């Protein structure tokens, strides 16, 4: 079976873009990805695009860069939206329908305020039905993890310290400031144990990727920049006694990771670096275990002994993670792949993980949908 590759990938600077439309943000990312792949919009046979806050985003992008009349499918799949687009490109190419597909994720989120699902009903339920804010929901998941493993608030805070430090070397990140442990712990408490510096920020952002069949990559001579998709897997939440009263982000991540490892034929020890879904600091430790980067209950050890720092045995979120880049929901999945692509190509600058050959990306959106990809330099 021939392989499928990412041959162009880009994320715009995440942050505040008040004077651009979502279509323009997506167009900017898409053009950079097309340029890197040395193709034009006229070579693209299908578009998988996503946004949680803008409808028909793919059409809005092509209205900017070229209305070629190709099939566009717009996705709304929470925080897994961008990765879902790449997954759909992968399966569509695998099916033989297309050989060149554009994937884009876009979000314009400045000013949205704290996210969380309002419970439908006759009266507002916040404060009665506990809290539906994302910091509360993820905080509850973190407290559950802490009760099981002995993780402390300081362990969670250390994730923010690490990721914010990494971002000082990432010019595309929104927050590029070191945050020592006491600063993280003393920041405003949003939902204990999470302080403000342990929460990702709503930003405007876009990311895009060009996915291509092996035959097409070879024909166009693009193997020098190609990133092989060795594993591409998604999962929803398997039944679990508390889900969805308490959303389970662990089960779907585990299922997707197991499928991706099996598909790629690699072992967790083969992974050189990981970009995972640290929408809140606490959940990074949970995902160390969910992605089998360590054994059960050992996530705390990984942060305490520095294993996931840039110089550690399995660097996690070298980009600075969602905690630093910001989290434009639908763009995040592709942005995580962009970071891995930089390292696999040796283009990550100061934060480069030397000799990186295989990387993993992960996102998980509440509701729930998880996506894991295993990428390798061709």
């Amino acid at each position, binding site marked *: 079976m021939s392989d499928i590759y990412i041959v162009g990938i880009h994320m715009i600077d995440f942050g505040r873009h008040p004077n651009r439309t979502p279509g323009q943000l997506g167009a900017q990312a898409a053009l950079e990805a097309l340029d890197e792949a040395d193709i034009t919009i006229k070579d693209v046979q299908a578009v998988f695009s996503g946004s949680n806050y803008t409808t028909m985003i793919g059409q809005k992008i092509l209205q900017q860069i070229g209305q070629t009349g190709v099939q566009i499918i717009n996705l709304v799949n929470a925080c897994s939206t961008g990765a879902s687009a790449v997954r759909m490109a992968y399966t569509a190419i695998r099916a033989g329908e297309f050989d060149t597909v554009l994937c884009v994720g876009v979000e314009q989120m400045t000013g949205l305020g704290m996210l969380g699902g309002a419970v439908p009903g006759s009266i507002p339920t916040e404060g009665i039905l506990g809290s539906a804010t994302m910091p509360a929901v993820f905080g509850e998941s973190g*407290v559950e993890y802490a009760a099981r493993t002995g993780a402390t608030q300081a362990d969670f805070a250390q994730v923010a310290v690490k990721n914010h430090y990494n971002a000082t070397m990432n010019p595309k990140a929104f927050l590029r400031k070191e945050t020592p442990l006491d600063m993280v712990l003393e920041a405003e408490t949003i939902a204990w144990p999470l302080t403000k510096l342990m929460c990702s920020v709503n930003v405007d952002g876009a990311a895009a990727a060009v996915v291509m069949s092996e035959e097409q990559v070879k024909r166009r001579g693009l193997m020098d920049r190609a990133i092989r998709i060795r594993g591409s897997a998604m999962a929803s939440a398997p*039944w679990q*006694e*508390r889900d969805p009263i308490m959303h389970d982000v662990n089960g779907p991540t585990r299922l997707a990771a197991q499928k991706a490892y099996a598909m790629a034929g690699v072992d967790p020890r083969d992974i050189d670096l990981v970009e995972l879904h640290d929408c809140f600091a606490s959940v990074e430790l949970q995902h160390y275990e969910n992605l089998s980067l360590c054994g059960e209950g050992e996530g705390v050890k990984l942060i305490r002994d520095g294993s996931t720092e840039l110089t550690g045995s399995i660097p996690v979120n070298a980009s600075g993670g969602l905690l630093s880049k910001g989290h434009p929901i639908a763009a995040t999945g592709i942005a995580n792949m962009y970071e891995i692509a930089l390292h696999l190509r040796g283009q990550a600058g100061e934060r480069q993980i030397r000799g990186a050959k295989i990387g993993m990306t992960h996102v998980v959106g509440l509701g729930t949908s998880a996506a894991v990809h295993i990428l390798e330099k061709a």
Partner: protein
Amino acid sequence: MNVVTQAPKPAFPFILLDASGQPSLIAQKCTACGATYADSERVACGRCGGRADVLETFLPATEGTLHSAVIVRRGFPGVDVPFISAVVDLDGGPTIKGTLRNTAGFEPDHAAPGQRVRVRFDDALGRKDKAGGSYIAHYFEPIPA
């Protein structure tokens, strides 16, 4: 001014008010696989796929164990903070979410997983619907050790 004198309504589908207005919890259990749900009108079982005819209604325990909780200090605009958002495993199921009150305060020790809690019913913080109707909600309170 019109004075509305209608009886309070349950705030959630897992609260039942009897003819005299006495509240209790109501839930569903799958007789095929044992899964429990904080609901009264499920279409089918989310665990085994059993159809509605295998789901039976039951009155769950009003005591349970705190599974997880956070102290909410910044909420949505207009919502008073702090409060404790809690996930509780009722004895015999199901799990329900709610607000933990009558604790000693708002320190992590006051909302520690494993703590025993009971369910109390009370007015839904004075919130009313557009017709002026009031609602009965559930709250968790610690059971002193």
